[in-house]
């Protein structure tokens, strides 16, 4: 199902796989201030309700766009690509590698922060390499700008959409590993 909302449009940014995070931050804060009830002291309740809805949409858009993987997910949706539950395929060797990695981490509870940091650095490097491939297969910014606001449901999906889907599926595992390692490092720091 194509995405219903274009988060890039919500935040006034051009559609692109790579965005300037400072621009994102600026636009986000400006839009938040504009819909904040404090800027509309004399507004009626209907207006305030509408601005509350707008604020929630702005927050949602910000959360989606600031993370690279979820930004790519959103862009793929705008292009009419499949979501992860409708196209779950991924390379078996990536799965095996992830399982092996997680098992070895589980079997080494003695790993100290330095040891965990090493794993984290490797996971981040793997993700960066995958991200470079993901970026290379998305359409150019000018093609993305030309997309209709809502992708045409009847259009036959282009082959790149499925390839992109699989790469994003892989990305989810690297992100999960990075999150787990980060949590484990924080826990170790507390102890």
């Amino acid at each position, binding site marked *: 199902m194509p995405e219903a909302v274009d988060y890039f449009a919500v935040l006034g940014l051009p559609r692109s796989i790579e965005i300037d995070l400072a621009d994102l931050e600026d636009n986000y804060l400006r839009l938040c201030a504009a819909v904040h009830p404090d800027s509309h002291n004399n507004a009626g309740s209907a207006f305030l309700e509408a601005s509350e809805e707008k604020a929630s949409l702005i927050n949602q858009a910000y959360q989606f766009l600031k993370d690279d993987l979820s930004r790519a997910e959103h862009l793929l949706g705008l292009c009419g690509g499949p979501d*992860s*539950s409708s196209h*779950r395929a*991924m390379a*078996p060797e990536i*799965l*095996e590698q*992830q*399982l092996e990695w*997680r*098992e070895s981490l*589980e079997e080494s509870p003695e790993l100290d922060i330095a040891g965990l940091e090493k794993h984290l650095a490797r996971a981040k490097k793997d993700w960066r390499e995958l991200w470079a491939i993901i970026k290379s297969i998305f359409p150019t910014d000018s093609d993305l700008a030309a997309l209709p606001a809502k992708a045409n449901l009847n259009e036959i999906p282009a082959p790149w959409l499925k390839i992109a889907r699989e790469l*994003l*599926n892989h990305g*989810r*595992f*690297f*992100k*999960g*590993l990075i999150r*787990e390692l980060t949590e484990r490092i924080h826990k170790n720091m507390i102890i």
Partner: protein
Amino acid sequence: MAYSTKVLDHYNNPRNVGSFDREDPVIGTGVVGAPECGDVMKLQIKVNKSTGLIEEARFKTFGCGSAIASSSLATEWLKGKSLNEALEIRNTSIVEELALPPVKVHCSVLAEDAIKAAVRDYQQKQGSDEPAAVAVIG
């Protein structure tokens, strides 16, 4: 979102956690992943060659509570089943038993996929002397 008591029970006391030797010919191994959340699940079955029944099942799941509970429950259900019966386990039964909310249905799908993959792996190891039980779709 709160987990159901059954999910919590399996999460706190997971049944049959562990691994079998993947090279052992009586072991079938299924490794699957959920691209929705990045969970990884390994499910293994140990088949008694003379009876054709699953004697033991083990799992290792790296993921959320619902994924752990789904695979833990699956290993309980697999014990004593034939391969055909194992392939009949549906994710909807897991959803029902664990009272999984809609956002966690994919965890049960993962468990069903893992069962199918483990059975398929076992059957492939046995080679052509045993007919494929059921065509696995998907």
